[in-house]
């Protein structure tokens, strides 16, 4: 087996899905081997950078690579959008982190991804498919141009409900509308897996609750180490405090206190804004950057879709 010597996290492929969403494929043979659905990594793009958590959207054991799909929402993710090219390398890449998702061979599983959660849903859907489940997928985007990986999802889902906010592709509406449709069509759903903005996960968990369908969500609090050492990622689940990085990130969606999660995601809003403004200015100083119209930060309290 290859030695663990891995100091150069080289980017071997990149694909841009839209103005804001991009895919990075990074060489890390050991991680590709160890990765399981539901796990995430911590990335530092450069030595002065922040440690940011990103879900493993795919991994290829033969090629020895892992795939990240990133949405440019703030300083770090936008800077990576500019600086990460094929042939360049990340400063740090640690993981896989978190408890792998429990794929227990349920007969019919609903896999729901919206916003940041579309790509992270893929390995889970595939794992359920491989475990023999009938997989019903629901993925949401803002509009047709922002849709990505439709083929990949169709490849692992027995049925895929594609939603767009403006109706330019698939069902017109929010992810939660797609979920309601799936619930009506499939009274025999045994389990639901939901990844996306907290407000979306909350709405989906509320939709499955009356039917008593086991619903797993993947929470995304702010993290630092990802190893259980700082407590920054703490979430309330069933009244107990749990650390998402080592006790999760998957939890029972009917037990998670989403309001608490959303409030805690706003911890650093002024600082995030300052970092982004400072960075955008420095970009503009170098060259006229096309960032102005996107300077507005996403709001974790609104259901945002991919793109």
């Amino acid at each position, binding site marked *: 087996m290859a030695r*663990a010597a891995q100091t150069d996290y080289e980017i071997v492929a990149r694909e841009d899905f839209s103005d804001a969403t991009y895919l990075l494929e990074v060489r890390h043979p050991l991680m590709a081997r160890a990765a399981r659905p539901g796990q995430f990594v911590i990335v530092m793009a450069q030595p002065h950078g922040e440690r940011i958590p990103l879900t493993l959207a795919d991994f290829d054991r033969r090629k020895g690579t892992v795939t990240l799909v990133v949405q440019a929402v703030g300083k*770090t993710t936008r800077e990576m959008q500019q600086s990460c090219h094929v042939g360049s390398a990340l400063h740090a890449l*640690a993981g*896989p982190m978190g408890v792998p998702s429990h794929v227990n061979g349920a007969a019919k599983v609903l896999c729901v991804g919206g916003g940041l959660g579309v790509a992270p849903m893929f390995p889970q859907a595939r794992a359920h498919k491989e475990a023999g489940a009938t997989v019903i997928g629901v993925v949401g985007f803002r509009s047709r141009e922002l849709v990505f990986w439709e083929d990949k999802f169709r490849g692992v889902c027995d049925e895929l409900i594609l939603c767009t906010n403006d109706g330019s592709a698939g069902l017109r509406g929010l992810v939660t509308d797609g979920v309601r449709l799936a619930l009506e069509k499939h009274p025999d759903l045994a389990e639901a897996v939901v990844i996306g903005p907290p407000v979306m996960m909350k709405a989906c968990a509320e939709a499955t609750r009356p039917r008593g369908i086991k619903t797993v969500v993947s929470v995304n609090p702010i993290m*630092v180490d990802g190893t259980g050492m700082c407590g920054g990622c703490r979430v309330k689940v069933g009244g107990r405090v749990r650390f998402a990085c080592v006790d999760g990130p998957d939890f029972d969606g009917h037990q998670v206190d989403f309001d608490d999660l959303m409030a805690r995601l706003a911890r650093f809003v002024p600082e995030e804004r300052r970092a982004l403004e400072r960075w955008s200015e420095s970009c503009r100083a170098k060259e006229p950057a096309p960032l102005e119209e996107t300077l507005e930060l996403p709001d974790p309290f609104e259901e945002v879709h991919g793109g």
Partner: protein
Amino acid sequence: MASAAKKKTVRTIPQLRAAMPEQDAGQRSRNFAEVACGYRLEDALHEAERCLFCPDPACVAGCPVSIDIPGFIRRISAKDFRGAYDVITATNLLPAICGRVCPQESQCEGVCPVGETLEPVAIGRLERWVGDKAIAEGWSSAPHIEPNGFKVGIVGSGPAGMACAADMAKAGCEVTVYEAFQEPGGVLKYGIPDFRLPNAVIDAEIENLRRLGVNFECNTLVGRLFTLEQMRDEMGYDAVFVGTGAGYPSMMGIPGESLNGVLSANELLTRCNLMRAREFPQYDTPVPVGRRVAVIGSGNTAMDALRVCLRLGAEKVHCIYRRSRAESPARAEELHHAEEEGVEFHWLTNPVEILGDAEGGRAGNVKGMRCVRMALGEPDESGRRRPLPVAGSEFEFPADVVVFAIGTNANPIIGQTSKIRLDKRGYIETDAELATSMAGVFAGGDIVTGAATVIEAMGAGRKAARGIKRYLGLDPESASPERLFGIPVSEKNFARIRAL
């Protein structure tokens, strides 16, 4: 011997301890430069004169790793500084670190007989002076190393892992240290701030390990990237040492803990020290900067959090502790420095609730603390008098950041990902030689004892190294055990051992 002829007594030695040159309190509480600047040569020589060279030295017995203290002080007196370094590093590999952070007042200095009438010999400061001199001169304790073909893997790069790595490298093993963070050092790097332990000192000690041939692999979360079993069975490690520290910070479970502005000391310190949030936005990581900060707890971690908040620019910094000053577990020097720097201490006080801004909209922020006064009752199991709330003594004060520094629990990752036996609280179980339930795997430091001290973690790393040497048959004094769990060791058939 010449020195024995003129026997020193408490009356003949210099009466006053050499003072430690320090940054002025007003100035230093606003910067991150080191508080204690270190002895100059004349201070060290003066202080060395104060040692009585006791024939049966109490200090050595008081030292967790039994440094030959009179031995190294004697060499300082004789101006054989390299000799002093060699005496210390025969037992303590990290003098520049331990000299700065050991609780000397409850170890060597606490039992020094000079302390019965005068201030005890400043052993820690002398140790630090020797360690700093070694860094400045580029000395290292690297002996001639004969490679022996054994591979040893170390999990965690804190003091326990560093000490074990050094001993195994010196014994001739090929040593790799795996660290989850992007830089090695453990709590020394992410927890203890620069004004107490500059990063340059830690980096110098890590560099010494590299010179011994130790290989560091950062960004490696053992358990998740590969397991302990894989290290042993697939990656070719003949022995593994686990020194992953305690980590997992505790909260109290009082109302208001999820308000924005409430965080653990570990989070505050990691953001500030390792991620350099104090230089935000030059560095990307932010840290909540409070105007009025309340820190709960009174150990070293609490002192560090209090003093970091002052340096980040807080106007008022409160320390809340349910026992009295006498019971505070912090190093005496840190407590003293915190008082000098203007920390406001509330002894015999316990938090009841963290208050939020109710109408602040959706993201609740901290706006104050409600506390209750405590009185000391009967002694509890720890022998300390148990604090009990005083009825009707509740009071409130404004705060915008609240930091918990009330201790940590065992990190769960190694337990989640291996079959290693844990105790009831989740710490790794070991025998007296620090061997775990997994053949070939040893453990030590905070992950075995719970949160303790740097020197104890280092001592555990060295003790485990002795155990590993015996296990690998590298210890000339005691032959290696021939059978482990009923299987001949020469077989190295761990799969069989595990199957048992």
